[in-house]
């Protein structure tokens, strides 16, 4: 944005009367909103297959494009939403060699925090890079941010591995209300949002607020401050084992801490023992009974928090909120028709996630909507995939993620990493540097496949952008006279590759 010649002259004339010489450093009112008015969405061509793989997965590999060509979009998506794709045995073997996958997080208490966080991220990078069910991996990214947990708070990093398996991965393709219940009983969440310490004398409102605002109903959806207080009372006594004999750090209900008074949540009366849960279906309870041999007596009042989760999980506002978030993540910011449709599907199917996603991922809206920016994790993984880079996902890539602004499990606030273009567009330089380093063999543990990418820069560009490069393509000028392998870097660093 610059001042026009005329503006500058006028400014200079007025300014000189105020004793300021020339045009230097005079604040001048210019045309307003010049930036916003002149904004236009990117319009690069993209094939339907690449668009689907960019949106529903972490970008194309040759194998994905082959599978997609064979199955067609409907079948490709449904196979993945029903989780029918067997995982790559090699990936499973590599994951099995990583402590955080092979051991229980709470048994790793003597590991340094940084090692935990690095390994957690390494696992995420490997799964997103190599995971055969790309739709599932994409959803894991979505739900991990939806139920964000900050790994640097307390023992969160040690509790997060189990949360990742038992809450996120287990339910990513399941029913949302079940994921909500699993999250409510997840020691990682109980610690992160302080419910671990909430008792009847002074109920802690942190989790009570966020489960409604961020996890289910959405903000300004009709609940009141009083509802928050009541929900906090319902969850009193939901804590984590931490005594000498109970070191495994699992969910624990402490009836002595529980507020046994009557509560009213969103108009529903809730009383201890009113709704004893059907134990066979109550998520997370099996372990509790088996281990503790608890009698019903010690569980009086546990039903209240579960009742809250059930009310929230079935609530129309939750259906609307989850539908809205899914539509914004997979389609675009203004997908009103799709939000309505997906909300209805949620209500009809009791929050069945695949039923909501199947029509969305195969829709024309997904194909036609304006591109969305890739978050750094998406950019990193899609770079690895499109260049068929072989990697162990180790420390160097984890550091690159941090430099790009998305160190996983380290967003402090419970709302998860932002998904808006404006939040990320200003952080391009670390992306460029990642692209340069990757292309020039600068990562010891991540090497691109020069065999298929090297040689003619235009061919390289076609391989990375997965589209024909035409003779009048504006990128062609940028591909001339480049240092070795810089064509790979340039295409990964290009504006086009930042969009999905």
């Amino acid at each position: 944005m610059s001042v026009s010649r005329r503006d500058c002259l006028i400014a200079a004339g007025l300014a000189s009367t105020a004793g300021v010489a020339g045009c230097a450093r005079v604040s001048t009112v210019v045309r307003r909103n010049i930036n916003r008015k002149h904004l236009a969405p990117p319009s690069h061509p993209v094939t339907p297959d690449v668009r689907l793989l960019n949106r529903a997965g972490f970008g194309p590999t040759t194998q994905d494009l082959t599978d997609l060509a064979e199955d067609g979009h409907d079948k490709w998506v449904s196979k993945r939403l029903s989780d029918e794709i067997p995982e790559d045995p090699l990936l499973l073997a590599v994951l099995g060699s990583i402590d955080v996958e092979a051991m229980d997080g709470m048994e790793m208490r003597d590991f340094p925090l940084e090692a935990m966080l690095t390994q957690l991220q390494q696992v995420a990078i490997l799964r997103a890079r190599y995971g055969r069910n790309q739709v599932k991996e994409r959803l894991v990214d979505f739900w991990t941010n939806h139920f964000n947990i900050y790994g640097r708070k307390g023992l969160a990093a040690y509790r997060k591995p189990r949360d990742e398996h038992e809450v996120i991965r287990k339910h990513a393709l399941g029913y949302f209300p079940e994921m909500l219940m699993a999250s409510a009983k997840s020691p990682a969440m109980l610690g992160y949002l302080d419910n671990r310490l909430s008792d009847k004398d002074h109920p802690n409102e942190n989790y009570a607020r966020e489960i409604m605002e961020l996890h289910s109903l959405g903000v300004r959806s009709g609940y009141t401050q009083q509802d928050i207080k009541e929900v906090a009372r319902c969850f009193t006594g939901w804590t984590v084992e931490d005594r000498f004999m109970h070191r495994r750090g699992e969910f624990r209900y402490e009836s002595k801490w529980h507020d046994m008074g009557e509560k009213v949540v969103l108009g529903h009366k809730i009383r201890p023992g009113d709704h004893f849960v059907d134990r066979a279906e109550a998520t997370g309870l099996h372990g509790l009974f088996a281990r503790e041999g608890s009698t019903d007596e010690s569980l009086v009042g546990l039903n209240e928090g579960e009742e809250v989760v059930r009310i929230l999980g079935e609530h129309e506002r939750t259906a609307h909120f989850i539908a809205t978030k899914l539509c914004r993540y997979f389609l675009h910011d203004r997908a009103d028709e799709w939000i309505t449709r997906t909300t209805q599907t949620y209500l009809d199917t009791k929050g069945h996630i695949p039923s909501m996603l199947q029509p969305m991922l195969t829709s024309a809206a997904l194909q036609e909507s304006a591109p969305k920016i890739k978050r750094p994790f998406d950019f990193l993984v899609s770079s690895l995939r499109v260049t068929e880079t072989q990697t162990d996902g180790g420390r160097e890539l984890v550091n690159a993620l941090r430099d790009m602004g998305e160190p996983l499990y380290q967003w402090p606030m419970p709302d998860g990493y932002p998904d808006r273009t404006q939040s990320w567009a200003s952080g391009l330089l670390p992306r460029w540097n990642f692209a340069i380093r990757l292309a020039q063999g600068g990562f010891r543990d991540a090497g691109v496949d020069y065999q298929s990418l090297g040689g003619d820069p235009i061919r390289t560009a076609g391989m990375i952008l997965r589209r024909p490069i035409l003779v009048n393509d504006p990128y062609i000028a940028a591909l001339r006279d480049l240092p070795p392998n810089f064509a790979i870097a340039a295409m990964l660093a290009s504006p086009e590759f930042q969009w999905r």
Partner: protein
Amino acid sequence: MALTKDWWSCDGKGHRDPSGVPNPNLLDFAPSRRGLMMGASMAMAGWLGARSALGQISISAKKSRDRIMVVVFLRGGADGLSIVVPYRDSDYYRARPTLAVASPTDRTAGAETRALDLDGFFGFNPLLAPLLPLYKSGELLALHAVGSQDPSRSHFEAMSAMEKGLAREGSGPSSGWLARQLADTTHDPASPLRAVAIADVMPDSLRGAPQAIAMQSLEEFRLAVGESDRAAAERALALLYGTGRDEVSIAGRETLETLKTLRTLDTKSYRAASGATYPVSDLGTGLKQVAMLIKANLGLEVACLNKGGWDTHIAQGATVAGAKLGLLASLLDDVGQSLAAFHRDMGAEMYRISVVVMTEFGRRVEQNSSLGTDHGRASTMFVLGGGVRGGRVITKWTGLNAAALDEVGDLKVAIDYRDPLSAVLHAHSGYLAPDVFPDYVRNDPGMYNHSYLGSAPKIADLPA
């Protein structure tokens, strides 16, 4: 409609057909022939038009008179009652039996745990001792019972409202208040770096700002190529980013300009002035970067920094000795030391700088069972700078007794957070963009010296 899997493995020769006609076979593979051709030709035209605008940045070496606003956002809802302590309000001690900061005259408390008297009613948390001299010299102003009208007590709603400059979240523009002020004014010669966020992610207050960039550190703000390859790499990036009118392309061009500008900056040999020592914290190193940028005179107008961790639902603590493991202690210590170091380092330059310290909301007056506090409403705000009429706590204090608090038990908002912000903008340029704070009538809290306001750089209104 799906493409065959190997469509891209064409050898590329057809792409460079000397006749200039694209290979028609390739076009058949495109999702929409017309869309693709239009896209390509439009992009080409845009590229030719935009190319000449690049690379014309010259940096004025003149001593700048511009005023600079540094915004430090305490994220998570900072407990104003532990920062600027109302030690003469007996209800404070009733509501906070274990978390309250002792009064300056309380002989039962250790000397290092007592509040530092400010005006006979309020006192600084003792961990803010480094700021006391600045308060006494009149450069630091505190405001109390400040906040927005957002009743949600949600971090995200309250932060979003404040960063967009709204009374409450809901309606209004989606851009940030700083962004709108920046978009509505300009400088000549244009600076490629009018606003910087020392952060991973661009804060909402700068959303939509021209010439704004987020970076973690100046030192790392360079292309990872050898000197011999740099020109070629930059040329390629300039060509790639030279066309688009989307956010990424615009940001890419601004990044390239900033790279050029910052190349002249020798960050490694930077020594803070007057023996100032910045804490080795995100805030300390962040403010040090801001100091470098200001001293380099690159045309910086706004800097945004974050300090997180204020969501003290548990183990909040108050002072080092009062609750040794309290979360607030290290946060306040860092804030005090960082701001004091910045002030010392900037020296006389401080005259043209206003540092604003703000938070999205305060915390519940009554402490909770986890030795913490839950989300509340009003909190404190600091303004530090040369022209400030400091040494005062500006507030409309009605007390902490139940009748004075709101229905939930929170300190009511007595001062709209936009009062001080608009005062800073006004002191800096004498001008407020018309939509900088939508649906807000300016209310001047009298924060600045008259002479300072009189010497603000003049704004020239352009004829309509």
